């Protein structure tokens, strides 16, 4: 088992009502699988929101296998400026 931290921002935070989640997952779980889980928890509220993925505060471009202690964020469209 691995333990990962999910950081929630903007619409993800709004949909889940949480800033942060800690999940215990089976070894070998991928970011894509976690994203599916998060979208499910959000009860269709993220269905039309595109999400980029960051692992340990860096964008990743394809699904990765997560490691124990990883910090993951599903990043809705950013709005700086």
């Amino acid at each position, binding site marked *: 088992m691995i333990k990962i931290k999910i950081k929630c921002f903007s619409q993800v935070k709004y949909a889940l009502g949480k800033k942060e989640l800690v999940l215990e997952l089976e070894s070998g779980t991928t970011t894509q699988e976690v994203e599916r889980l998060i979208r499910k928890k959000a009860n269709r509220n993220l269905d039309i929101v595109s999400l980029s993925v*960051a692992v340990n505060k860096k*964008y990743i471009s394809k699904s990765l296998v997560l490691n124990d202690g990883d910090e993951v*964020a599903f990043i*809705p469209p*950013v*709005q*700086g*400026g």
Partner: protein
Amino acid sequence: MVKVEIINGPIDFFPLNDNRDQDGAEIVFNGRVRAAEYDKIITALEYEQYEDMAESELKKVAEKTVKKFVIHDLFCKHRIGKVKVGQSSLHVVIRSKHRKEGFIAMNYFISALKDRVPIWKWAILEDGTKIPSDCTSS
């Protein structure tokens, strides 16, 4: 030279530097909070950041801009937290030999910032409700 800062509180503008031998052009951009967001009246925006990642992405974008275009300085401050209507949330200064490359670099930098830097806006409505900025349109 590249300087980027994420600031919680009002922006101190970088001083206009009237003492540069090689930079023919200095371009400053200030982005301000307007009184309406997606047609709803707001009193302020609250900017949320992904701590550390926002600043490191901002720095990457700035360094890429300086490398891609031939510019000498790119200084940027981005505010987080509550920013009242009328105040600046973004302040950018670019210095370059010629004006044209400066404008192209400024546009590129702001677009890339808006595309990559993990910062989000929450709209604060007149009744005090706080909602993600995108949701003001629904």
